[in-house]
């Protein structure tokens, strides 16, 4: 019996391995073309596999709306998979798992999911069913599409404003929240109290980047700051708005002392717990999303607080009333087995006023359609009303979809963290390096 030589065996083995690799990689090829029936089916049937990230109480709210959908469409069974984060979603889509509809908590995935085809182009469905996209405002429309391809629809929004403790403000002699960043700093310093050893007892406003919702993305709209230029490269270093915001934030920290603010911040409770520093009164004013109203109702119902739009940069007072908007998005997976039923469910979740209002009342997120925002059935407290106004404001902004997800924001924040502690390079040189890093990362994904 002839035994193959070791070299031949290695060669055969490598050939086999290469074949396996190429076959497997070929299996993952995306198909982005979407061909659909000329008319929507009169009667929907089959099963829709619906993946979303909500859990516990919030998952029950989503389930109740799904149940409403199946009552109207008795031929459809919705197989709901709750508690699935974005990474699991993408891995499952890539692996060809049976997912029809996916719901994500992050608009940062849109650039990649649209360009890679992980989510199908919804354009043909929208055209066929004559969906009026102007019912969503411009910002919401912008974060659900990428380079002209609409692969997702908005499922409620989060927006960010200023929470203030009425008792603490009144005790310090303030009767209204600040409207400019200079006012915010001045009021915050007046509201800050110290222990006998010089450490901070209560803070008027915590300026530390990275504290709870203090993210660059949330500060950007306060000065109309831009992230990416039209050609997709970083616009951060060349935008004076970022320099203005960073200079203000650094001067605020320096007025108290970085070490003191850092020590104080380090001892604060978890953001998503009853120990949240605003809820405990350790911080008098705080930037947060509309969902905080639900946490306060649940955990500290006796807290006397108000909400307002975030103050704007001093030379951008015309932007007052706006803020950062983001939200949940949903799309039909490239491997959807029942795309028509998935589209029907997606359309129901994102355009049916009754469904949106029910979701909003249950999840305490902001509706995204004009009709739902004006619905008398929407449960609106004075504090929550602020966030409905922010989402409708023309000056509200968001972060642009990118093929590298939130990578460009992370690069910028890495530098901002160093800058605020005084350990980074100078501002201009640092921002130039940020631009260079972001451009190199994007080029790695999109370059020739």
């Amino acid at each position: 019996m002839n035994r193959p030589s070791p070299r031949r065996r290695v060669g055969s083995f490598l050939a086999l391995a290469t074949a396996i690799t190429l076959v497997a990689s070929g299996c993952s090829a995306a198909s982005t073309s979407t061909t659909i029936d000329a008319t929507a089916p009169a009667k929907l049937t089959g099963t829709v596999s619906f993946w979303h990230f909500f859990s516990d109480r919030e998952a029950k709210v989503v389930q109740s709306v799904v149940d409403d959908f199946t009552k109207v469409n008795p031929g459809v069974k919705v197989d709901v998979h709750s508690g699935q984060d974005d990474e699991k979603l993408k891995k499952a889509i890539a692996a060809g798992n049976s997912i029809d509809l996916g719901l994500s908590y992050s608009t940062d995935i849109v650039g990649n999911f649209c360009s890679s085809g992980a989510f199908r182009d919804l354009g043909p469905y929208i055209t066929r069913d004559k969906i009026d996209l102007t019912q969503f405002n411009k910002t919401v429309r912008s974060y659900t599409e990428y380079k002209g391809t609409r692969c997702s629809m908005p499922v409620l929004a989060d927006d960010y404003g200023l929470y203030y403790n009425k008792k603490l403000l009144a005790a310090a002699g303030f009767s209204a929240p600040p409207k400019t960043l200079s006012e915010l700093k001045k009021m915050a310093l007046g509201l800050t109290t110290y222990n006998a050893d010089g450490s901070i007892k209560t803070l008027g406003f915590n300026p530390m980047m990275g504290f709870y919702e203090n993210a660059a993305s949330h500060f950007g709209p306060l000065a109309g700051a831009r992230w990416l230029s039209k050609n997709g490269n970083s616009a951060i270093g060349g935008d004076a708005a970022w320099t203005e915001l960073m200079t203000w934030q650094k001067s605020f920290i320096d007025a108290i002392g970085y070490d003191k603010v850092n020590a104080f911040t380090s001892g604060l409770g978890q953001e998503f717990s009853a120990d949240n520093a605003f809820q405990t009164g350790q911080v008098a004013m705080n930037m947060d999303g509309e969902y905080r109203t639900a946490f306060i109702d649940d955990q500290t119902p006796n807290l006397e607080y108000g909400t307002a739009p975030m103050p704007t940069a001093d030379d951008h007072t015309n932007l007052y009333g706006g803020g950062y908007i983001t939200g949940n998005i949903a799309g039909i997976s490239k491997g959807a087995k029942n795309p028509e039923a998935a589209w029907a469910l997606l359309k129901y979740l994102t355009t049916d006023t009754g469904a949106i209002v029910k979701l909003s009342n249950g999840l305490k997120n902001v509706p995204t359609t004009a009709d739902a925002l004006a619905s008398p059935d929407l449960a609106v407290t004075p504090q929550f009303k602020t966030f409905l106004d922010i989402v409708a404001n023309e000056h509200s902004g968001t972060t642009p979809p990118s093929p590298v997800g939130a990578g460009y924001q992370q690069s910028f924040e890495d530098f901002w963290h160093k800058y605020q502690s005084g350990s980074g390079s100078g501002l201009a040189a640092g921002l130039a390096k940020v631009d260079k890093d972001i451009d190199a990362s994007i080029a790695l994904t999109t370059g020739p």
Partner: protein
Amino acid sequence: MLAPAILGLLIFFVYPLIASVYYSFTRFDLVSPPQWIGLRNYIYLFTQDPNVWQAAGNTLWFVVVLVPVRILTALGVAWLLVRAKRASGFWRTLFYLPALVPPVAAVVAFVFLFNPGTGPVNLILRAIGIQGPLWFNDPAWSKPSLLLLGVWVMGDVMIIFLASLLDVPQELYEAASLDGAKSWQKGWFVTLPAIVPVLVFSVITGVIAALQYFTEAAVASSVASGRATVGEGGGATLGYPDNSLLTYTEWLYVRGFSNYQLGYASALAVVLFVVASVVLLVLLRRVRAFTPEEAS
């Protein structure tokens, strides 16, 4: 007879390894077909990646500090336990018990214990007039804080050393005593050669684990940042504070699954594999010189 084992090896080791090498030369986002881009990922890794060297440095810290400290502590505790005359079962259980705590729970507990404002550690230090550090919230202290955690859960290594020390033949000690050996000479010439295989095993597994260090650092960053959430991933807090806990595998994860650069992440994985292989080969060659067979 060997077919199932070979099949398993091909599917779960050889194929992923070859696939990773292939993807490392491509632009790949997991969904679109991979595009061949030659050495582009490797050039970016060595010349343009803004965080890879810091991540590699942090990982190296865990390899050269955490691994030896854990092993020496475990060896020291095992040595003491061998000599314990009373309640040895109690002491063995006490030192081993922390190793049974799930890693995530252990890290969460540690971060709360060492919370600079409300944690009992700093409260005790304050009571005796010492201003405690910010522990997991200070870039200079975050890694030493994880080192303390690593030492606390060293029971898994300690139990192996304990078994090894108890397994050293008493006759060898008796013979050494007859030859007039002192305590340290018995330790150096009898105990150490006898436990070298276990020591080598501990070093190798420890180095591999340190090169892949992820869970403890990720959870510590998430909890210490005050933004721990359930269900929304932890990508935004990885590395906190100031990337001092950003490990190489965390960075690989960020680039692969948050930035959708699976091709580049594969290049990072290949480099890690090569580095780990070289380190372990060097380690094995150097250690072989100390084994009893080589000595004889």
